[in-house]
């Protein structure tokens, strides 16, 4: 039934955001269906139209770029919003009037949204709680009438996906329908798609792993070897689980593709922006410098700040996150940070698997 109805309904698939990941996902989708790709920047649209190229990727001929957000909602039933978390809510507010409950949204953004009382900024808040910090699926539900929401997470380095290396992703949603749609649209011989019903858990895993990725970059930048990285990944995992549970996820999601899978990948890869931030910090560059020299946002920097303030509020022990916070925002050197962490009194190896 599904295959037939798919061919009958040849509405294009929408992708919002023509960044690295958005472009690659659009290309993956275009193997099977027509794709409408929204780019905020008109010159990006022109470039794709004229050169069939964006950010160094060749863009599939079935992709139609557009600068018109409402067109996405009007022409597509299935939409993949993939925009940085900092712009996600404003994009949703703009899109929302055109959305209906028949739309399916699967986002691919690994970051938090923060809503603060008037006049406050993240810097002025002593700590943050879940009424202020939202995942992207929660933003979609708050801002629109769409109920069938999912997210895309996992070790998906855009460059490798574009080159067709074997990889896997997880689609998380409360709705099996959404998971199945995602599977049908994205699966291929070298791209495996898994499903998970713990939407918030998977989102949190994807977001929190960016913190550890920065730390991994910093270790690499200091020239340390694999023992240190093994230590970091395993302890980082524990920290993610604790924070994730405090924020409303289940342990299980962190043990899957979106958790350990993504973590192992980003902690070993110089292709990861977050990893790079850590690496350059360890080499002695300042955060300002690093931010000034990249055009795409490393979600992890914001995440460190938010995760640290959430850990304070929920009284979760998160030594890696809070040390990283000191490095990024309070001028602690990476060397000092490492010394601090190595002296941190930790006792039990694993104490979260008690079910």
């Amino acid at each position, binding site marked *: 039934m599904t295959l037939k*109805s*798919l061919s*009958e*309904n040849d509405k294009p698939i929408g992708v919002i955001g023509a960044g690295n990941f958005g472009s690659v996902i659009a290309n993956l989708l275009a193997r099977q269906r027509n794709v409408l790709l929204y780019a905020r920047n008109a010159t990006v649209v022109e470039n794709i139209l004229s050169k069939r190229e964006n950010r160094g990727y060749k863009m599939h001929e079935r992709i139609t770029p557009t600068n018109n957000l409402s067109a996405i909602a009007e022409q597509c*039933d299935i939409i993949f919003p993939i925009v940085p978390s900092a712009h996600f809510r404003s994009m949703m507010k703009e899109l*929302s*009037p055109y959305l*209906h*409950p*028949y739309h399916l949204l699967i986002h691919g953004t690994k970051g938090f949204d923060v809503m603060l009382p008037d006049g406050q900024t993240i810097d002025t808040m002593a700590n943050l709680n879940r009424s202020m910090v939202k995942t992207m699926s929660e933003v979609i539900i*708050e801002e*629109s*009438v769409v*109920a*069938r929401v999912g997210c895309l997470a996992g070790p998906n380095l855009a460059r490798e996906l574009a080159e067709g290396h074997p990889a896997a992703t997880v689609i998380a949603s*409360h*709705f*099996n*329908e959404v998971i199945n749609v995602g599977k049908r649209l994205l699966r291929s011989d070298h791209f495996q798609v898994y499903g998970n019903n713990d939407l918030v858990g998977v989102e949190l895993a994807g977001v929190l792993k960016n913190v550890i990725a920065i730390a991994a970059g910093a270790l690499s930048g200091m020239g340390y070897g694999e023992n240190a990285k093994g230590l970091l990944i395993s302890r980082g995992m524990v920290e993610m689980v604790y924070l994730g549970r405090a924020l409303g996820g289940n342990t299980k999601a962190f043990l899957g593709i979106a958790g350990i899978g993504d973590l192992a990948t980003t902690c070993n890869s110089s292709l990861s922006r977050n990893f790079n931030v850590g690496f350059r910090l360890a080499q002695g560059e300042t955060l300002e410098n690093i931010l000034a020299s990249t055009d795409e946002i490393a979600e992890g920097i914001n995440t460190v700040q938010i995760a640290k303030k959430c850990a304070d509020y929920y009284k979760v022990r998160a030594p890696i996150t809070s040390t990283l916070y000191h490095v990024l925002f309070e001028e602690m050197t990476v060397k000092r940070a490492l010394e601090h962490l190595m002296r941190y009194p930790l006792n039990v190896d694993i104490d979260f698997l008690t079910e």
Partner: protein
Amino acid sequence: MEVVEKKNKNKQYKPILDGIPDWPVYQLSKNRKEFIEEVAQKTFAHIKKNRPSPKQIIDEIQATVYREQQRMKRNRWRVDPADEPKFWSTIKNEVVTLSTKPPEESEAKADEILYRIVFRYANEIAGNFRATSYRLTREIIKFWFARLLNGARVKKFGAFFRNRYSLRDKIHIVGKVGQLRKLAKEGTIVMVPTHFSNLDSILIGWIIHSLGLPAFIYGAGLNLFNIKIFAYFMNSLGAYKVDRRKKNAPYLETLKFYSMLAVQKGAHSIFFPGGTRSRSGRLEKQLKLGLLSSTIEAQRNLYMETPVGEPVRKIFIVPVTLNYHFVLEAPDLIDDYLSSKGQDRYLPEQDKYGSWQLLQFLFKFFTKGSNISVSIGPGLDIIGNHVNDAGNSLDAHGRIIDTRDYFISNGTVTADKQREDEYTRMLSQKIVSEYYRINRVFASHLVAFVAFELWQKKHPNLDLFGLLRLPEEDQEIKYEEFRAACKRVRKEIYRLKAENKIYHATHLKGKIDLVIRHGLDNVGIFHLKRPLLIDKDGNIITKDFSTLYYYHNRLVGYDLEKFV
């Protein structure tokens, strides 16, 4: 001394439909035979679909026969039909002979048996609404309530036959009454009240009538039909029968299809989504999802069966909270709750209430100043979106949305069990949050909450069960301290009300001493042991800690604890 409620809350409502023959429930009972057949057929088809092999059908029948025979052996009631043993033993014999027959023949026979069972169940469940007895019942109730009220309150000879007071003075209906009346004309109402007391269903019945709404149907426990006079009233009010002894799959499926198809046909219904009475006295947090999910299914069926473009009758969920100063069964309920929570740490005192106590209560209720209020919540669609008076679903920004779109996949309405399970969960969360929002705080809730929390604060090292065993000499709170805490909590309740997160009775306003007095006078007013009293030195004491805990629980869940 009584703080008077605003009078304008108590106006009289005209019926929204003139004659009983226009009522959906009347239509249903007029076509009773066809309806029962439809229920049986659809249930049968559903059971068949989930059990594709004949073996599964036969297993199901055998299990059902076994359970029914066990039930008849152990627990027969007066209402049970006389031909029951014969019916089931015939079925049993027929099932035995099935194995000797060739497969095709036995398959057809098994189907026939299953259909017979389901058809019997549908007949058992079906209500028997009769317009004449409905009118009669309504008049009887009205007449006697009025007599009781006036006889007890107006202290003059002959007052018994006066009509100075009506039930309206005792029971205040607040909230979205106008909208409810409009929606009842636009579509089908499914009313979902909180459940605290056995009185609830009677109360709701009266409210529906006094709001000028046509009779609603609801599932009443079969045990109530054991009593002849009850059976008469129940039948006349559109109740259908729910037999909680029968847990077999064919029965449960039939019951589900009965209520679902009735809603689908436009019969306004009442479900208590909490399942049973709240044991702890808290507002329901966890709802039974079965009935909610069949409501969603009913709406989806309507969308599927109606051609695109034609109007579809919408189903509206209306949350309702019932607010009491006093719950007759409170001591029993809280005992149940505490013994299930505390295991051996809690030993309930035996203290049962019978029908004599019920009569006493009714008399006291009418004679003394204890009022009940009912808050009607805003109408929701089956996803939990608010609707406007015309019945259109609205999103958070007030834009109109088409509820049909929630069931659309690839451009058409589809049935997806898992999707609807998720919608059920969303709807249930929405109903719970509406309960908290429309909950109406009484002075008695306030004083119970503050007193219990103060005791808790004085003994931070004791858990609940330790607290309940506190020696009597520690059970005293200085009035000044109590007064200050009441004031702080009341202020917070005001703040929450301004944010639209809770409501409170008008009597909560005014001088705090009067409010406290009103609360103390009313909290658990008719219990043998009062949960809260003021002693001769003017201090606050309790005679029954667990019942106090029960009334206190009404305000749990608003984070008011830190203001005590």
